[in-house]
C-alpha cells in the first residue's frame, strides 16, 4: 500500500464519482450498499468493505511476494505503463496487479490451449490465466500484441469475461460438458460484476450457454403473444432499428409506385402494422392525389382476431387521411406454405409490392423452404420486393463461429441501447429482453427450433440473385431520410447510415447491424 505508485494519489478524486456511478446503475450489484466500508482505510482514501478485508490482505501479501521476486526492470516498466481505474478500490486494484504481473511474462501466442477446470479460488485462476491461450475472435488481436498491454489492462475484466465466454463455447463445441458447466458458472459471476452493456450481454449469453449445456430448448410455442407484442412495440419505440427498416422500405415503395393508380402491398410479417401508417400518409400527400391502397397482411394462425382488429385500426387511419383502403389477412404457420393463388392479385389495376422486414431469416430453418417462398414471390410478379434483414452471419454450420459472431453483434446492439440516454431505464430493459430472446435462440436452439438464422447482405444477394431477382438502388432520398432519422436519436453520432452497392445499412460505431435492400424481377422474367 505504501509502495509509491504515482497514479494512486492522483486518482483518488475519481473514487467518489465511481461510487456515485455505481449507485446509479440500475439493478446492478456492483457496489453492494449493505456492506460497511472500513472507516480507518476510508480515512486514508481507500474503499474496502469490511467483509473483504481478509481477502484484500491475502492479495496484498501475494502482491508483495510477486513484486519482490520479479526482476526489477520488467516490473518497473509494468508499473509505470499502466493506468488503473479507481485504485482506491483496493480489492480490485490488488487483483488486477496480481493477474497482470503473473499473466504477461508468460505471454506466448503460440502456446497450445491448456484448459484446467477453473475454480473460484483466485490464485489458481491467475496462474491458469497465464497458461490459457484461447483462439479468440476480434479481441485476440489486442491481447496478443505486447505494445497494447496497458490498453488491455484497463479493459481487463471485460476481456476476462469474453475469454471465459469463448472458452465455454469451445467446451460446448467439443462436447466437454463438465468443463463447460464450470466455465458457465464462472462467466455468470464475472458478468454480474461487470457494469454496463458488456455485463448484460454476457449474462444473456451465459444463460443461453447454460440452456444449451443442460439441453433446455426454449420452445417458441410457450411465448405469450401479447408479451411478444409489448416487447416488439417497445423495441420500435426506443431504438431506431425498426424505424429505419420501415422508413427505408417505405421510401423504396414510394419511389416504385409514383405513377400507380392502385397499390397492393403484401406484408410477409404484419406484426403490429407499424410500417403502414407512414406509407398511407405519404400516399395521401402524393401530388396528383392518393392511389387506392390494398394491404394483405400475413400472420400466425393464433393471432387471427388480432390481425382483423389491426386491419380495422388501419382502415380508420386510412379514412382519416383520405386514402381508399382495403385489408386482407392471410394466416399461415409457415411462410413457405404460401401459394400464389392465396393472394388475389389484380395486375391490371394495381402495382404489387412484397415487403419483408426481418421475416425471411426464420424460413431458413427448414431446408428448401426459402427457395419455395421466393418462387411464390416471383410468381405473383411484384414490381418491387423490399427486404430488411440483420447484417450478421448467425447461420454458420460451426457452433463456435456462430457464437463469436453473435457475441460481437449483440455486444454492439446492447452498446447502442446503452448510449442513448433518452430511453428510460425500464424501456431499455424491455429492449434488452427482446434481444435476449434472440440470443437464446441463436445459441441454445438447434434444428427447426433455431429460427434466428441471420445472414449477411451478401448472402441474401446471392439467394435473391439465384431466385431470379435483380437489385434496385435505394437512392439518395432514402439515404437522406435515414440520416435525418438517425440524427434525431441520441447516441452522439454513434449511428451511421452506410451505402453498400445500392443498399443501405444502419451501423453503430462502424459495425453494420441492419441492411435494407430492394429487388425487382430479373429483366427476362418481367411480363
Amino acid at each position, binding site marked *: 500500500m505504501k509502495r509509491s505508485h504515482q497514479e494512486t494519489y492522483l486518482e483518488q478524486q475519481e473514487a467518489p464519482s465511481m461510487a456515485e456511478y455505481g449507485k*446509479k446503475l440500475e439493478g446492478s450489484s456492483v457496489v453492494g450498499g449493505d456492506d460497511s466500508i472500513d472507516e480507518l482505510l476510508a480515512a486514508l482514501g481507500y474503499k474496502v468493505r469490511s467483509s473483504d478485508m481478509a481477502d484484500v490482505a491475502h492479495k496484498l501479501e501475494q502482491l508483495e511476494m510477486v513484486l519482490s521476486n520479479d526482476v526489477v526492470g520488467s516490473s518497473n516498466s509494468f508499473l509505470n505503463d499502466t493506468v488503473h481505474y479507481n485504485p482506491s478500490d483496493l480489492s480490485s486494484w490488488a487483483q488486477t496487479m496480481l493477474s497482470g504481473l503473473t499473466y504477461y511474462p508468460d505471454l506466448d501466442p503460440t502456446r497450445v490451449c491448456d484448459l484446467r477446470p477453473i475454480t473460484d479460488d483466485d490464485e489458481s485462476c491467475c496462474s491458469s490465466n497465464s497458461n490459457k491461450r484461447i483462439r479468440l475472435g476480434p479481441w485476440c488481436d489486442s491481447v496478443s500484441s505486447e505494445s497494447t498491454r496497458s490498453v488491455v489492462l484497463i479493459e481487463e475484466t471485460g476481456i476476462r469475461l469474453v475469454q471465459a465466454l469463448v472458452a465455454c463455447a469451445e467446451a460446448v463445441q467439443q462436447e466437454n460438458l463438465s468443463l463447460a458447466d464450470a466455465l458457465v458458472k464462472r462467466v455468470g459471476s464475472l458478468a454480474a460484476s461487470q457494469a454496463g452493456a458488456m455485463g448484460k450481454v454476457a449474462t444473456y449469453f451465459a444463460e443461453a450457454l447454460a440452456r444449451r449445456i443442460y439441453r433446455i430448448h426454449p420452445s417458441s410455442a410457450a411465448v405469450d403473444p401479447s408479451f411478444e407484442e409489448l416487447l416488439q412495440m*417497445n423495441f420500435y*419505440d426506443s431504438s431506431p432499428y425498426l424505424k429505419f427498416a420501415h422508413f427505408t422500405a417505405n421510401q423504396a415503395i414510394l419511389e416504385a409506385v409514383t405513377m400507380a393508380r392502385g397499390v397492393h402491398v403484401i406484408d410477409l410479417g404484419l406484426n403490429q*402494422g407499424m410500417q403502414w401508417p407512414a406509407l398511407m400518409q*405519404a400516399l395521401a*400527400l402524393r401530388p396528383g392525389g392518393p392511389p387506392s391502397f390494398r394491404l394483405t397482411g400475413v400472420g400466425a394462425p393464433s393471432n387471427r382476431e388480432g390481425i382483423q382488429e389491426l386491419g380495422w385500426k388501419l382502415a380508420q387511419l386510412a379514412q*382519416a387521411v383520405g386514402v381508399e383502403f382495403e385489408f386482407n389477412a392471410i394466416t399461415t404457420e409457415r411462410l413457405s406454405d404460401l401459394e400464389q393463388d392465396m393472394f388475389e392479385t389484380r395486375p391490371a389495376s394495381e402495382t404489387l409490392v412484397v415487403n419483408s422486414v426481418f421475416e425471411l431469416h426464420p424460413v431458413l430453418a427448414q431446408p428448401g423452404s426459402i427457395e419455395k417462398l421466393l418462387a411464390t414471390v416471383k410468381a405473383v410478379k411484384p414490381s418491387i420486393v423490399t427486404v430488411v434483414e440483420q447484417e450478421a452471419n448467425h447461420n454458420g454450420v460451426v457452433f463456435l463461429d456462430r457464437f463469436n459472431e453473435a457475441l460481437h453483434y449483440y455486444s454492439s446492439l446492447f452498446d447502442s441501447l446503452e448510449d442513448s440516454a433518452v*430511453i428510460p431505464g425500464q424501456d431499455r430493459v424491455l429492449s434488452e429482453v427482446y434481444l435476449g430472446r434472440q440470443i437464446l435462440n441463436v445459441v441454445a436452439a438447434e434444428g427447426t427450433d433455431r429460427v434466428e438464422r441471420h445472414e449477411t447482405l451478401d448472402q441474401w444477394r446471392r439467394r435473391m440473385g439465384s431466385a431470379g431477382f435483380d437489385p434496385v438502388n435505394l437512392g439518395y432520398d432514402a439515404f*437522406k431520410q435515414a440520416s435525418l432519422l438517425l440524427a434525431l436519436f441520441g447516441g452522439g453520432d454513434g449511428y451511421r447510415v452506410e451505402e453498400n452497392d445500392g443498399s443501405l445499412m444502419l451501423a453503430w460505431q462502424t459495425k453494420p447491424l441492419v441492411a435494407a435492400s430492394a429487388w425487382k424481377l430479373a429483366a427476362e422474367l418481367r411480363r
Partner: protein
Amino acid sequence: MSEKRIGIVEKSNNKRQRVTQDRPEFSINDHHDVLLEILRRLDGPSLCSAACVCRLWSAVARNDSIWEELCFQQVSPRPSLSLRSVVSALGGYRCLYFLCIRPVLARLPKLLWTRDQLQLSLSLYCVHYYERLYVGAWIGDAPPSSLMFLRKPVNVV
C-alpha cells in the same frame, strides 16, 4: 383600460382647469381577428408565452391556423391544401408542432428546415397517431410512445 386624455377646459370664472376626458376605448381583446393576425406572425417561443397571458389569449392561440403558419414559416414552396386535411385529421398543427417539429428543430438546430424534415416529422406524427389508436385499449401503464426518443432526456438516478 381606456386611455385618459388630459384636456384644458375654460371654466366660468375664467380659470383654466385640468380635466380628464375619455377617449373612445380600443382594446385588442375586443378584436379577436386582429389578435389572431398578430399572433400568427410570432415565432414559437413568443407564441407560447403569448398563450400564457390570459384565458382569452390562450383560447385564441389554440387556433390551428396560427400553428400552421408557424410550421411552414421556413418551408417554401407552400405545401398543398390536402396537407391541411391530413394534418387536422391526425390531430392538428398545434400537436404536430409540440410533438414533432419543436423537438426536431431542437435536435437539429444547424440544419435548414426543408421539406425533408417536414416529411419526416409528418411520418413520425402519423405513427404516433396510429400507436395511440392501436394501443388505446391497453390497461395499466401509460401506453408506449413512438416519439419517446424525441423527448428531453431525464436524469434518472
